């Protein structure tokens, strides 16, 4: 059974659609990567899942089930009960995502306290342990410090500690390493996968970096223009991408076996803004395989490896 099941999700700002018919599921213990350029709707999908859409954004269609319970529409349960306990999230900017005036230990302990899982003393104890687990030296002393006294990498470790302290069943990681130094990125990613494995936590990893996907994910969902264009096991996507967009994304990874001084590949054109989304396949403004058929919306077809394209790169 799926842990998180998103069906036909649509998110709009007023009458402007931003996410349009996303269907996605994550099984327990699985690491799923949600890939796409900025503006593709991947963060919105994640935020809808945890119920933290910004003011003015609304889920207009679809269904979200977590652990079997529905969180949208009639008979929906309160996400607040689940948030921070079974479902946790970490964000892009570790420094600003921490309350600047609260000691980090208290922030790590907070989810245990608000869900009534532990007393303040127990939670503080647990927070120090957790800080130790995420590799923060001298955790007892550090717990008393404010975020401003820590480096960005350390802050992200604190965020991870705060997210994982309640042993959630699903962790949503929204580009957790973009703001960090390259050297730290690997450590953080290793930490996430290690901890997830230890506790059996599923991870929804949101990223635009195909390298990270290759390294961590079990499965991949590629988003473009608010829709999922391709999804499947990580090997299948990397070895035989079907959607032209996925193909192009893969070509953006710099490779050592390429001749030196060759220009890096860039996807031609820009991501159109939601106001200017084309009818039909939304990639049709940038696609080199476009035909007349592409003015219609392609369905997401396939079994394990699904694609929404009339002219896929390789047939199933």
């Amino acid at each position: 059974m799926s842990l998180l099941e998103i069906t036909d999700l649509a998110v709009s700002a007023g009458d402007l659609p931003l996410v349009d018919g996303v269907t996605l599921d994550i099984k327990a213990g699985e690491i799923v990567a949600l890939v796409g350029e900025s503006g593709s709707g991947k963060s919105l999908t994640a935020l809808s899942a945890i119920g933290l859409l910004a003011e003015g954004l609304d889920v207009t269609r679809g269904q979200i089930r977590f652990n079997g319970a529905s969180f949208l529409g009639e008979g929906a349960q309160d996400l607040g009960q689940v948030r921070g306990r079974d479902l946790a999230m970490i964000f892009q900017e570790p420094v600003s995502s921490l309350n600047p005036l609260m000691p980090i230990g208290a922030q790590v302990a907070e989810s245990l306290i608000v869900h009534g899982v532990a007393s303040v003393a127990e939670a503080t104890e647990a927070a120090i342990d957790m800080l130790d687990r995420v590799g923060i030296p001298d955790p007892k002393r550090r717990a008393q410090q404010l975020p401003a006294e820590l480096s960005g990498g350390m802050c992200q470790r604190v965020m991870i500690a705060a997210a994982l302290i309640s042993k959630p069943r699903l962790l949503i990681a929204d580009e957790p390493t973009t703001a960090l130094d390259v050297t730290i990125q690997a450590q953080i990613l290793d930490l996430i996968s290690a901890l997830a494995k230890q506790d059996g936590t599923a991870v929804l990893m949101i990223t635009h970096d195909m390298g990270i996907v290759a390294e961590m994910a079990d499965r991949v969902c590629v988003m473009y223009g608010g829709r999922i264009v391709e999804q499947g096991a990580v090997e299948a996507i990397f070895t035989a991408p079907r959607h032209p967009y996925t193909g192009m994304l893969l070509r953006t990874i710099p490779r050592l076996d390429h001749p030196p001084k060759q220009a890096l590949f860039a996807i031609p054109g820009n991501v159109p803004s939601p106001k200017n989304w084309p009818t039909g396949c939304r990639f049709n403004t940038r696609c080199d395989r476009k035909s007349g058929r592409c003015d219609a919306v392609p369905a997401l077809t396939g079994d394990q490896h699904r694609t929404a394209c009339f002219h896929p790169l390789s047939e199933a």
Partner: protein
Amino acid sequence: MRLFLLNRLFQACTTAFGVLTLVFFIQRLTGDPTALLLPETATQEDFEAMRKTLGFDRPLIEQYLSFLGDMVQFDLGKSFIQNAPVAEILASRIPQTLQLAGGALVVAFAIGLPLGAIMALQRGKWISRWIMGFVLACQSMPTFWSGIMMIMVFGVWLKWLPPSGTGTLAHLVMPSIALGLLSLATYARITRSAVVDELGRDYIRSARARGVKTPRLVGKHLLRNSAIPVISITALEVSQLLAGAVIVETVFAWPGLGQLTVQSIASRDFAVVQAVVLLGAWVTIFANLLADILYSIIDPRVRLGTSL
């Protein structure tokens, strides 16, 4: 830290000195109070005699120097209208002013802060617009008008509160509200914008992701972070309160410094005016200093030296 305080003290002294000098000379531009003191039948000789008694016949610069000499010795002088030492007059007014300013601040805080927070949390909802309307309405009436209306309604018609005067807590209610209403809007607005600012910050979202609900979010995360603009506005508001008190104190016959200011300016009671202005200047300066110290308590990141 010590250097900072010394620097502040030096600034305060120069400001106070400047204020005193300016007030001393511009006051005397307006003529002296001899005509007010003498009865209508007084002759020109009476005028000259009175001017001599009060020392107004001396050259201005001489008067100024002797005034400075007194100030250095902490001698505030004597009121020639009230025939009493200025220090004594001030001492009787200060507690009254503190009560009124305190009452007004309580009104402004107790109503303004929650309303501001509600407006921020309910942004875009109808309740927020109604609150904003109410808050702005509070600030859209001159105090001499809202004051007399309150007196008529609660003092004369309903007889719930004494129309004017001092003495009991009941006396304090209406003047505090009249004065507090003006600042209330400022507080509500500042709180709203501070809370809105904070609400947009990443740490709020991550706290929510941790499962923190609104009450705790406001109590544990928002309040302290939003406090800084509120505190700095309070420092500014204190001098505003003294200024606004002029009319409120007149309407409610509240014997504070505001009324004293008007009366002593109107009667050219130079020594009292100088003392009141000096006091006001120091209050403003200390309010700002206190605000800086409060920042550093609330926000440990602010190191006093760097906040300058």
